[in-house]
């Protein structure tokens, strides 16, 4: 069961990476990052079956960090939207030479 869970975790992580790389809507891009965090959580839980309960504690901590990241990131997107009137990441090119 552990190898299957690790396989699903890898597939979900890959889908999250593809989402980050291909989407232009900043909110969907951010949700893809959440999907990658979830994939890592799945592999942590699967490996906690082998190595004790520490992996589940890590999952709880990852969830805390991801909640903090979501709140701050979405606040940044609200500020960006007020400035650019869009959340398309193509419009955020101030640093482009």
């Amino acid at each position, binding site marked *: *069961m552990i190898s299957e869970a690790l396989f699903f975790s890898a597939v*979900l992580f890959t889908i999250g990476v593809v989402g980050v790389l291909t989407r232009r*809507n900043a909110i*969907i891009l951010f*949700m893809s990052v959440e999907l990658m965090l*979830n994939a890592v959580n*799945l592999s942590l839980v699967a490996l906690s079956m082998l190595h004790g309960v520490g992996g589940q504690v890590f999952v*709880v901590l990852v969830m805390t960090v991801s909640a903090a990241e979501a709140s701050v990131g979405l606040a940044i997107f609200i500020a960006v939207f007020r400035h650019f009137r869009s*959340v398309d990441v193509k419009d955020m090119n101030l640093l482009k030479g």
Partner: protein
Amino acid sequence: MTLFYQFVFYLFGLIAVASALLFVTRKSPVAAALWLVNVMVSLAALYVMMGAHFVGAVQVLIYAGAIMVVFLFVVMLLNLGHADAISDIRSLGWRLGAGGLGLVLLAFLLSVSRAPWPRDAVLDPRPANAVAPVAGALFRDYLLAFEVSSLLLLAAIVGAVVLAKRSSRT
């Protein structure tokens, strides 16, 4: 592991992968968020099947219940889910397929609730024991990380309020 257990594990894993694919390909942010909720709930089912009951419950409460609601709040606050992108009503074939799938799931649920559970399919027969190991590790071995994460949450609250607040000059 019984065959039934294995089958349900694969089923939820495939649901998670299929929902993730649909999530990546949706145009509307609201539809994408709902597919991501589907991924998270099936991941919670996988956690419970692997014996991590507490993590499964927290996954539903925090990820599907809190974080995705914040995402949807922001989508609606910024008025990003436009009506043409939201209207997700498909043709008759789609609706019939969804209805058939619902019937299959209902029959599945009925058969599960009728059948006596095999003893060895349940990993942790004592639900009172589901939280205690995690709590013991969290509050003994990882106490410093726990306290630091509370500090991180406080900083995130303050940061979110400062960033999203309308400045008084404009």
